[in-house]
């Protein structure tokens, strides 16, 4: 069954349809639109948030931290932060798979906006080993190490410079909401996969340990804000704006500025796990009126582009022979439920995390997905 509004269908985990055939993800989107208004209301909220940030950071060199990847959303957020009069520190997690465009985009945005950078580079062999472990674990969360590491680095940078606010470039209106059950990320999950399948010690990987995270929440009171939720964010116009004003360049697809993420999204997820992330992204664009449903369906019918060179590059770096790689691809699928995670702990701490969400210390999506 297909949603009558977006392009999700009954294969999506956790999907339900109402009497008009509209799916629950569309409903979540509408609720979020109410909770996070744009236009004048959104502008007012943003101005208030900016004032809080400025006040919180008046004694520090920087007043907020922004994670940058060279991508469209984080690049725009840098501009927005400057427009709001903020003094951001850009933070980049280099997983050693940067594309040239990503690096150039970060360089040009930071240079033109006069924003300082902090980069954390993980040891290449350690990251290769961790990635290999995740592939061998046969779970869809191959990007977990990168996502977890970036979160940790953002907190570390905020703590070091006494910054109270982490600005996140997520935009539900163009990125959508990941279906519940598609994946799950936490530090203990990374640890348990590494323990079982990793070969190198974890020395440079910045894992997000619960205790450390709670300290940042409770003691340091570092908040996570999503300013783009309050902006009428239009993807195509934003890309044009960034290109014309900053020399920023588009890299072909969502999250494709990082070659390893590209490999995950365009090869592993569709091939092994039957997950096509474009469904989520295009559904969001359809709901926001930025893409016609017919266009979305047409685009989704075409296979995701992938270069054989990139697959070979991944195999080489991860020290997989062709046979090993193929056998890993055909292993039976597993999920986070097959490994130890913090999930039981998060569930027990549900009320605590409800409070953290209300205080803007954790995103609402975390509360909904991780504590149930």
């Amino acid at each position, binding site marked *: 069954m297909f949603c009558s509004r977006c392009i999700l269908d009954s294969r999506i985990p956790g999907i339900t349809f109402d009497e008009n055939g509209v799916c629950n993800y569309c409903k979540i989107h509408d609720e979020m639109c109410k909770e996070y208004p744009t236009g004048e209301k959104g502008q007012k909220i943003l101005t208030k948030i900016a004032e809080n940030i400025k006040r919180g950071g008046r004694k520090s060199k920087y007043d907020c931290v922004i994670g940058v990847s060279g991508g469209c959303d984080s690049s725009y957020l840098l501009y927005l932060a400057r427009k709001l009069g903020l003094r951001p520190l850009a933070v*980049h997690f*280099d997983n*050693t*798979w*940067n*594309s*040239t465009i990503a*690096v*150039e985009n*970060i*360089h040009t945005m*930071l240079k033109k906006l006069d924003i*300082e*950078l*902090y*980069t954390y*580079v993980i*040891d*290449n*062999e350690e990251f290769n080993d961790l990635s290999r472990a995740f592939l061998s674990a046969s779970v869809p969360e191959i990007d977990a190490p990168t996502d977890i590491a970036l979160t940790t680095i953002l907190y570390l940078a905020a703590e070091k410079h006494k910054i109270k606010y982490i600005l996140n470039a997520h935009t539900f209106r163009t990125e959508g909401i990941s279906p519940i059950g598609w994946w799950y990320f936490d530090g203990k999950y990374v640890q348990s996969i590494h323990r079982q399948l990793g070969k190198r010690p974890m020395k*440079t990987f910045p894992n997000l340990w619960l205790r450390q995270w709670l300290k940042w929440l409770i003691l340091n009171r570092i908040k996570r804000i999503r300013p783009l939720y309050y902006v009428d964010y239009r993807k195509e116009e934003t890309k044009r704006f960034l290109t014309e004003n900053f020399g920023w360049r588009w890299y072909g697809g969502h999250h494709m500025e990082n*070659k390893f993420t590209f490999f995950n999204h365009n090869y592993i997820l569709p091939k092994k796990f039957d997950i096509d992330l474009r469904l989520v992204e295009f559904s969001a664009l359809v709901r926001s009126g930025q893409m016609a449903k017919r266009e979305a369906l047409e685009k989704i019918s075409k296979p995701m582009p992938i270069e054989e060179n990139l697959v070979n590059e991944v195999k*080489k*770096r991860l020290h997989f022979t062709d046979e090993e790689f193929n056998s890993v691809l055909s292993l039976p699928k597993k999920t986070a439920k097959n490994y130890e995670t913090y999930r039981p702990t998060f569930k027990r701490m549900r009320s605590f995390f409800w409070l953290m969400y209300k205080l803007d210390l954790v995103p609402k999506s975390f509360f909904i997905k991780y504590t149930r």
Partner: protein
Amino acid sequence: MLGVRVFPCLLLKNSGLVKTIKFQNPRYIGDPINTVKIYNEKEVDELVFLDIAATTENRKPPFNIISQIASECFMPFAYGGGIRSLEDIKTILSIGAEKVVINSYAVENPSFIKEASELFGSQSIIVSIDAKKHSNGSYYISTHGGNKSTKINSIAWATKMEEMGAGEILLNSIDRDGTMEGYDLELTKKVSEAVSIPVIACGGAGKYEDIGKVVEAGASAVTAGSLFVYQGKNRSVLINFPTRKEIEEILGRSIEEIYSTVKCVRRQKFQINDLVE
């Protein structure tokens, strides 16, 4: 008109890229192959890779990594670190590097440079000189990654190496390495005036404008480490490289015009004993 060559100088330690300050405290920069791919896409003029641990750890050059790097480079690529035999050079050139960089072994055995340049051609042989300024104002060379100092005068050594057949001199200022305070212009001038082969300046570049200054001092080519891997005051890792247009703007004049202002002092024939003060 021949362009001034501008390119990154990358340091390899085990399987990762690192960056030093005054040849100390190597700091991790990233994956060598991904970095090469980025510089290749940026169409840098050349690439120099130096394995900073091969000589001190007394091991062979990492042929596997050299081969991988060569396959990603569609520009000339020079490798240095731990080269001690003609066989080493032959292997490295056959797996795809255009040139080799020899440092410590040239001091142990200067005629090795003569043998190598006769066999492989001068244009494949770069001699690297790590120079440190002494309190008396002279520059002496160091070997083994800066760990062994000598009393050999850098300028005299450069002329000796040219005489032996070196095609180029890679001139490193140990004092300026990683400081981003600018090249050692005095050292560059002295060495460039003493030899008629190209001198590649290395060590100290802090901003793109430094490239112009060191060319005026006589460098035929310019290389940098920190400048092309770091961004900003925090010295955060971010690969960067000036565009062709930026390089041309920095240099302002053609290389021939620049060369016409650099004098080439007549070389004297040095005996090895003369080199040591």
